[in-house]
Each structure stands twice: as C-alpha cells, then as structure tokens.
C-alpha cells in the first residue's frame, strides 16, 4: 500500500497547549514564566488579564477569593492571588488524566 505513504505530510503546525506557570503583577505584566517561549505571549497576557479580573470582581461581590481552579476539557488553569497579582499554573489534560 505504497500509495498510502504519502498520506503523511510535513508542513503547518498545530499550536500546542501551554504548560507551566507564570507570575503576573497587579497590572497584568508577566514577571516570570516557565511556559515555552514559542507560545504566543499575547495569549498568556490575555489569560492573565482575565484571571486578575476574576479576582478583582470577586472582591467587588464580597467574595475575596484566594484561589481559582478553572477546568476546561483539555486544560486546567489554577491561579493563586498574590498581593494584587497572581501566580497561574496551566496544566494540559490528556485522555488518561
């Protein structure tokens, strides 16, 4: 079935899920990260901004949260509040996990 060998191809890449942690200050600036530098930093910045907003809005609703665990089907985001900023862990899930 040599014909089928050409079904495999090299070329465009699929973006992998981010894995690792990042620390952000209260303004949303990333001050430390263990996530691969090939992952788009703009996406990480957007995620950080959303996490900080969630902590901030929770305070406005009298919730004062210290940690958040957001479970998506393929990824878990864990965030701990850190003096207005946050440390955020991004952990991809696999079928087995």
């Amino acid at each position: 079935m040599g014909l089928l060998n050409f079904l495999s191809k090299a070329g465009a890449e699929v973006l992998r899920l981010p894995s690792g942690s990042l620390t952000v200050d209260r303004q949303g600036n990333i001050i430390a990260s263990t996530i691969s530098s090939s992952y788009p930093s703009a996406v990480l910045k957007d995620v950080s901004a959303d996490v900080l907003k969630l902590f901030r809005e929770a305070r406005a609703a009298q919730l004062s949260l210290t940690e958040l665990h957001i479970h998506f089907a393929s990824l878990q985001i864990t965030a701990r509040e850190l003096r207005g900023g946050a440390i955020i862990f991004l952990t991809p899930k696999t079928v087995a996990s």
Partner: protein
Amino acid sequence: MQSRHKVLILDDNPELLELYKEMLSQLPSRPEVHTATAGSRALALLDAQPFRLLLCDLKMPKMDGLQVLSIVRRRFPELRTVVITAVEDEEFRSRAYALGVDLFWLKPDTHKNMQMFLECLEALLGRDSEGGFRGVQSKSLMDIVQMECLSQSSTVMRITRGALVGKLWIQNGELIDAEAEGARGEAAFRRILEWKSGTFENLPAEPDRERTIHKSVNALLLETAQAMDEVSGSDNDPEDAEHRKTVWRLSALTREGAEWVVSLGESGPAEGWGTHSAEELGKWMRVLEEACHRMSDRIEAGPLSNVQAAGLDRRLVYLPSSGKSMLVAWPLDTDRASALEKTKKLTATWDS
C-alpha cells in the same frame, strides 16, 4: 427516495482530497462528497448547506483543524466530525475529543486500516441523530422498562441523569428491585421514573439479587403515572407550585450542607437561596462566564467543565450549563472533590 448524506472533507492537500473523495464516494451509502482546502472555505460550505459529516485534517496553515472544530462545535452541534491526521500525539487526540469529535483516526497506512476507517465512516453516516434516552430515541423510561419486561429479559438497567444514578433489576421480565438516591424498592423505582431525560445501559443480570418489589411492573407503572399526573395537575396554581419549589430547594440545600446557591439563566436576573447578595454574585458569574469563554477560545482549551474557588471563609463551585448556571457555596472544610460531587448532585435535582 432517501436523499444521500453530504460529507465535507477538509485538507490543505488537493491530491489527498481527490483520493479521499474517490474512496468515500464508494461507501455503501454513496454519500455526496464535497471538499475544501481551507478552514474558512469549509465553514462557508457548512453555512450554505446541511452536511452530515465533516472529515478534518489537523495540520493546516492559517486556521488549523482544532480551530475549525471549535467553531464547528458551536455553530453546527448536530454535525458529525472526524479528525484524520498524521500527527500521533496524545495531547491532540485529547483536545479533539474534548471538542466533541466522533472519531480521531491516524491516517491509514495499511489496506486493513483503511477498510476499518471506511467502515467507521459508514456507521457514522448511518447513525440516527435524534435525541431522547440514548439508544432508544423518542421513548420514555416507562416505555423502555415495559419493553424489557415484555421481552422477558433478565438484566440490570443502569440509568443516569447528570450526577444521579439509579438501577433497576429485571429478572425473567419481572422487576424485582430498584435503587436510587439512597432509596430502594418501589420508592426508588418511582424516583427514577420521574427523571425525564438521561442515559441508560444494560448490565449483566444478577439473578441472586434480593427481591424487594412484589407488585407487577404494570401496576407500578400505572401508579407512578397517576402520581405524576396529580403532581402536574396541582401545578396549575403557579403561586402554590413556586412556593413548594422554593421550600423543596431550601430543604435540599440544608440537607446537603451548602451555605447558599445562586442560579443564573442566559438572560434575566440571578436567583439566590440562602443569600441576600444574589445580584452581586450573579454579576460575578457573568464575568466568570465571559472570561472562561474568552480563555477557552484563545487557548483552544475546549468547553468549560467547572470552576472551583476558595476564599478565607468558604469554597465555591460553579457549574456551567446552556440553560442555567449554578454557583454553590460550601463550608471551607468541605474538600474540593466532595464539594464538586455534591454540587453536581444538587444541580441535577434543582429543577425536579
């Protein structure tokens, strides 16, 4: 005459598309095969006409397969989707299944593998897409139990509705026992029959199961149907029904040990039980929904399962739903896994 199903194949390699097109056109159901070399073109075709099945490559320039699938999942939930890829990677498999694909297949490298792949596609094209109790569409649970008994089956039916699980033991066409929500026997059977949707599976029979139900299944079904009619009849007074619902919800909340519950529909104000801050909490739930939606889209992380949070004095669990989302507060000493399980249970029974 039955119309032919339409299949759309998306791959950036035109030669491969031709090959697939030829192979799929020879399937026994003779589907009408269309092709696209870019995600944007595929989405335009899906918008323009109804398709039954989408075959999608993962590695493509501009818009990759996972991006296409995440859009397809939202815009065309009824469409069957298959990923066919040369990328042998557990992460991509997991993400594809998280996006609800029906099949993830590595590009076939042997004739036998190709045959199996085509058989799977044929099965997917033939599968009925209607809703209802899984496996027996448009049938109520009463119908399914009656069918099992009439056919003199011996089986254990496991019925699931969200976090609720019930079991019915049927031996030689007779219902001998039932178990659900901590109840057993006739009471459990009545509770299970009140569930209006869910899934069921048949497990091997357990002939040694102790018999707790001695009435005939038809008598029990009749009694349950009458009881359900009476309840729905008394719902004619909306004020009375609403009052009973509130009392029931507060007692469920207390029984499970939750501090408060806030529910939020797609529109309208939040409703709260056990809290006076439903409005503020509802606003935070909206912020949470929007933030999670944005993050899921940006990272391609798949649909949101749940959010858990902790503060200085309580633990929170948020469960999203297309109709109504719930935020439940638990004492801080409740462990995370148990808070999630109890929230699922509470949510499953909330609108009963």
